């Protein structure tokens, strides 16, 4: 054991690190079906025993726990129920300009889901705004097949 001399003061070391968790996730029969049909630009909800429709669909009723099985074809227009404006998008948002995270209730569904809404300015978005999906060119059967929602008035289908 020798008492080592500390090295002369030297440059402060810095480095970039990346820690990755490479998860794959199984979807199950219900979300799996919901995602699969997104590739065909379709939305499928699932009906509960009280007649209300869940989107995203669930395998089991969130209150009674009964198994759900009745698919319901939904429209592709929806209504913004609430939103959060993102002034400074980060890389992983895949947005070039400020956008909104919004709770969107699709026509025919009774529950809202979270997705992005692209509007030119925050003043354009409000609860009640009617929106339609903007589909990506190469769908994979995933929620990201929807690039974002945009005001329905902007989409000519």
């Amino acid at each position, binding site marked *: *054991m*020798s*008492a*080592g001399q*500390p*090295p002369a003061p*030297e440059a*402060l*070391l*810095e*480095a*970039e*690190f*990346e*820690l*990755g*968790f*490479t*998860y*794959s*996730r*199984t*979807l*199950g*029969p*219900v979300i*799996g*079906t919901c*995602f*699969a*049909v997104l*590739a*065909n630009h*379709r939305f*499928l909800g*699932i009906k509960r025993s009280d007649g209300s429709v869940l989107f995203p669909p669930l395998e089991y009723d969130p209150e009674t726990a009964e198994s*759900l*099985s*009745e*698919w*319901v*074809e939904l429209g592709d227009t929806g209504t913004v129920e609430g939103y959060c404006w993102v002034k400074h998008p980060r890389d992983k948002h895949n947005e070039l300009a400020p956008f909104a995270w919004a709770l969107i209730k699709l026509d025919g569904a009774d529950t809202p889901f979270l997705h992005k809404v692209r509007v030119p300015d925050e003043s354009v978005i409000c609860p009640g705004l009617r929106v339609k999906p903007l589909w990506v060119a190469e769908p994979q*059967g*995933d929620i990201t097949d929807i690039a974002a929602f945009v005001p329905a008035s902007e989409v000519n289908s």
Partner: protein
Amino acid sequence: MTSRPSPDIPEPKEMVERPVYLTYRYRANPQSNRFLHAIKQGLILGVRSKGSGKVLVPPPGVCPETGTLTPGEMIELSNNGTVLSYTIVHLPIPNSKLKPPFVVANILLDGADQAFSHLIAECELKDVQIGTRVRAKWKPEEEWDYGLENIEYFVLSGEPAVDIESHREARLQEAAKHA
């Protein structure tokens, strides 16, 4: 079973990729900075906690046991050490060039009171035991960088195995003198 609506729909999608990446910038604190500069030159430095008297490696800024700031003075540690515990890895690690089976061990360097994990290679798996003596095998000097990876792995030193409990007792007595 869920009923299929018409028209026909595709089979359910089975799996999606959902990787999570944390990207961050690490800035070395003063103690880590000296440790990293030293290991670039092939030296392993530790620091003796004034609170516990124990020699910690890699040197932290604060002793985890007593919360006292560690001194600036560093202690050069040996290339030899003892296996405190070990595991044999049989499953390949994604993106790793290590070929199973290989040994990962907690190694206590001579003169240190804190172990770190590293690889043990060039030996039969059965020859690695608690108390086995090992020696650092450094990579060629031109490959040295700022990290413990400068040690390629540990090899068996051939010295007789150590009784870990008595070694631990001796180290604790030594630490007590310095606390």
